[in-house]
């Protein structure tokens, strides 16, 4: 049975739309302002006060300076390497670990689960972690960003839960046919837990892409720096001198538009793919919310 919409409800709907629209506006405006600033002429950008709603004196000059910057290019290359190799290692370790932990009738199974889960609640902390990585001689290499982050316990538990939900009869009948555990893992479990796998793949890849702290404490050689660490130098520590050199412009003048362009170069690839992957990320929140 349909009830007639009252005046009060109409007012409510309008207020709702106005509120959500203004919130979306407030969230979007700083980002758009940075996009327009990055496309503006440095002199006019400098003179402009407040947020930008359209570029002033359209030019790509800041972008060409960013793309000529060696550090950004090597940073991009290093980050791609870390994301690809790191995520592959993550998936391999997480799949194998989750499979073993999801098997019943293993004498040491409970011990293995406890061994892994305990680390979610108690950690040694930054300093002992740093000393450990140093002790195994990974510091100063790009592997210090990959191997110590080989497994994320939370993702491992989520994957285990998903594998434990696969009916026992499937792996059992495969076993009857003589399949090994490795074979069962890759031919039965992986296809059946695809949805969860997609989610944790994204989570691992994003965490590698965003990570900068470990790179800051472990790396000394600038040619190994991932993109985020280069961004920190440019955006936070204000090192743009090398990029604007030889442009004939006053340094402080171009500096700002270079920073805006750098932000865009580092963010646009993500923001372009994000709408297509959004539902996987959202699913991830729900997967995580279900008790592991």
């Amino acid at each position, binding site marked *: 049975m349909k009830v007639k919409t009252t005046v009060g409800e109409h007012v409510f709907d309008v207020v709702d739309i106005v509120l959500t629209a203004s*919130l979306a506006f407030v969230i979007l405006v700083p980002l758009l302002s940075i996009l327009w600033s990055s496309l503006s002429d440095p002199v006019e950008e400098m003179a402009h006060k407040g947020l930008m709603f359209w570029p002033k004196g359209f030019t790509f000059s800041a972008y060409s300076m960013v793309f000529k910057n060696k550090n950004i290019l090597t940073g991009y290359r290093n980050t791609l390497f870390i994301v690809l190799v790191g995520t592959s290692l993550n998936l391999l370790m997480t799949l194998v670990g989750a499979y073993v932990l999801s098997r019943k009738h293993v004498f040491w199974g409970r011990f293995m689960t406890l*061994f892994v889960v305990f680390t979610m609640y108690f*950690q040694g902390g*930054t*300093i*002992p972690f740093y000393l450990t990585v140093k002790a195994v001689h990974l510091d100063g290499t790009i592997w210090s960003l990959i191997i110590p982050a080989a497994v994320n316990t939370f993702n491992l538990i989520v994957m285990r839960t998903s594998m434990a939900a696969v009916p026992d009869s499937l792996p059992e009948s495969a076993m009857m046919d003589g399949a090994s555990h490795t074979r069962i893992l890759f031919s039965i479990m992986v296809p059946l837990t695809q949805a969860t796998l997609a989610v944790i793949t994204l989570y691992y890849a994003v965490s590698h892409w*965003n990570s900068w702290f470990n790179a800051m404490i472990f790396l000394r050689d600038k040619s190994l720096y991932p993109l985020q660490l280069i961004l920190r130098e440019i955006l936070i520590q204000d090192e743009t001198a090398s990029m604007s050199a030889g442009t004939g412009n006053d340094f402080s003048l171009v500096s700002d538009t270079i*920073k805006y362009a750098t932000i865009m170069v580092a963010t646009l690839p993500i923001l372009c793919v994000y709408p297509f992957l959004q539902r996987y990320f959202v699913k991830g929140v729900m997967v995580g919310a279900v*008790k592991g």
Partner: protein
Amino acid sequence: MTIHMQKGFFMRNKAEKQKEDEARLMSGNLSTGQKLRKDFSVNKELYLLFIPIFVYYAIFHYGPMIGLTIAFKNYSPARGFFASKWVGLKHFKAFFSDYYFSRILGNTIRISLYTLVFSFPMPIILALLINSLKSRWYSKMVQTITYLPHFISIVVICGIIVQLTNADGAITQILAPLGVKQATMLNNPKLFLPIYIISGVWQTIGWNSIIYLSALTAIDEELYEAARIDGAGKMRQLFSITLPCLLPTIVIMLILQVGKMFNVGYEKIILLYNPLTYEVADVISTYVYRKGLLEFNWSYSAAVGMFNSVVSFLLVFFTNKLSKHVSGNSLW
């Protein structure tokens, strides 16, 4: 053909035998020693597969836990881990009487509390607003836009904040009529916390609303229909149906948030603070980072870190107990 069949037959036998073994193993008719041997022969492949994971956890998770013992030593890299002398609770005593002890503890709690008061309720309100939207595409669009900041890396987020709030930044200029000095806002101890909290809301309001939105969509539509027939207005529906249905989710999220109080994200603070704002921005984890990795007081900073780990662990433990008690839901 026969060979093939025989092979299949043999395999079947092997698998059946394995099942039998497993059943025997669990039935408890064997002594512990026999059980262990039997279990190892049945599950050998699983144990072998687990070795890399075991080694990883042993080195990179349990290694640092053992390494925490340097908090009770005078560790120096020259002497090495084992040769460094034991000094008991010296570093802990030094920390508790440290001039900065109350400052970093106070800052940690203050930042957490402000986050709890200002950032925590926002996603709930947003979820309520989105849930009441009639148009599907509009609601999708609002969601996509509000989730956006979640996908920007923390370094870039902080870069944006720095850029917008520096001496000639857009936000600094907009706030000029309100009497904000046209100088780098992040150098002003009074403005650090507002910037930290407001940008935090900007980052998380959309993403954190997902969990509430899904709880809202689970509410039975008939409840609302029935309420409307009885003449309940939107406000009445909100307080009598929506909020009571949402309460369990809110309680769990609140408890989890309290459990995380001592883990204030150091990444954002390290990127945003500077010596001018240490008095309001320096928290336990950033202090550990500076003392240990920049000033090389290894043992002292390990002791401070250990204090943080233990307090966090206790907080998570008790809030989890509380959550179990209140809602029957818990982390473990």
